[in-house]
């Protein structure tokens, strides 16, 4: 049986972790590789690195990060943030990353999804779907960190990215992101039940029970979190103990 996945997400700017905090086993909380190793030791199932610099000029810093992570981390990891071309995806994958996430670029140019999938396989292409609730039972896709509406319906867009060849959907509720109110379970369940590819729930986790809800009520395949782990509210290992106690199958 497949395990439900717990995925810490690291925001990286100019090659350094943003909002890094000190764990006992870390000498440098700003070093993404050190933090990554910390989470791997806690049995994180995958890692996501989001480059919030996301500028073309600084791309070499990201490439260097991928190389350093790949030398020391032997679980799958994903790189995202401002990727706009097949060439950039290639540069990242060939350095040892397993997947990339596409966000704004995929909305602007959906063919990037199919081009990426046919060049590297669907399993490498994760599409980040950032959605905001705009009416009862209706969520819309926003880009540019939630500031720009697109008019795209979240469910329809999720189904479209699957048809285009996305291997996975990273679904962030822009309403919940940055809050501690829990994942948007209704959105997560609606998207999960509308597509045949795995859905990663994201945005809003504050309690361990939120992870359980994402899997049981939201029907997610994986759950992503950032600040609860970075600020040490609880560890990945604690979340996995909690989920095991609540009959959710996880890798320990």
């Amino acid at each position, binding site marked *: *049986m*497949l*395990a439900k*996945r717990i995925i810490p997400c690291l925001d990286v700017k100019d090659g350094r972790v943003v909002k890094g905090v000190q764990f006992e086993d870390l000498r440098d909380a700003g070093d993404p590789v050190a933090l990554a190793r910390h989470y*791997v030791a806690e*049995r994180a*199932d995958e890692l996501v690195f989001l480059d919030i610099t996301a500028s073309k000029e600084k791309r070499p810093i990201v490439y260097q990060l991928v190389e350093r992570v*790949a*030398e*020391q981390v*032997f*679980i*799958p990891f994903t790189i995202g943030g401002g990727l706009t071309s097949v060439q950039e995806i290639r540069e990242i*994958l*060939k*350095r*040892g990353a*397993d997947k990339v996430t596409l966000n704004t670029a995929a909305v602007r140019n959906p063919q990037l999804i199919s081009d990426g999938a046919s060049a*590297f*396989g*669907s*399993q490498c292409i994760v599409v980040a779907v950032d959605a905001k609730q705009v009416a009862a039972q209706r969520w819309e896709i926003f880009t540019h960190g939630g500031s720009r509406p697109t008019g795209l319906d979240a469910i329809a867009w999720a189904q479209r990215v699957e048809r285009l060849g996305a*291997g*996975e959907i990273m679904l962030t509720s822009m309403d919940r992101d940055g809050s501690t109110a829990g994942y948007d379970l209704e959105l997560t369940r609606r998207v999960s039940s509308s597509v*045949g*590819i*795995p859905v990663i729930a994201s945005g809003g986790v504050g309690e361990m029970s939120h992870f359980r809800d994402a899997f049981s009520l939201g029907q997610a*395949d*994986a759950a992503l979190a950032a600040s609860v782990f970075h600020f040490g509210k609880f560890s990945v290992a604690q979340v996995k103990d909690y989920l095991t106690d609540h009959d959710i199958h996880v*890798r320990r």
Partner: protein
Amino acid sequence: MIHIVDYGAGNLRSLQNAFEFIGMATRVSDKPGDLASAEKILLPGVGAFAHAMGNLEQQGFVEPLQSSVRAGVPVLGICLGMQLLLTTSDEHGRVEGLDLIHGAVTKLDCAEKIPHMGWNEIEVSSSSRLLKGLPQSGFAYFVHSYVCHPVDGGHVAARFDYVGEFCAAIERENIFGVQFHPEKSQEVGLQILMNFGEM
């Protein structure tokens, strides 16, 4: 030296990194002639079976691979590389493989999501040399849509359960294969690569 066969089937960097991490030297070989001096051969692979087999043929790897294996050189196939060790595959019509282990590769037939992607427990056969020293039930990271069916059930070295039992690893004398990615399976995977390197 462990030779990693480079026939254009995707990214080899993670495999090289994993061996380097456990202190074992590898060499990437894109010339069939190199294999004659290989102590061990690693056959990676992502993508489609027919395309990969076509590349192996085009680059002249098929015969050297088969003769190295006949000469007793340990070979480890990973993911699609494991599937290539079998007789045939159904992926995009019937395609012939290396036929180093008799059996067929077919589409994963189950009610769950396909591809089978993520961490799944593997049940390890106690007689496996490749998988020795692992917990009897550990997790490995999989990404695949097709599975191997060796004719001789004795060649199955590990199984995984995904609404049905499937083959996770094969083993016959000096021929080994894993359906999952040891280079992405944390300590379980590194132990497997170490076992292979020490053969």
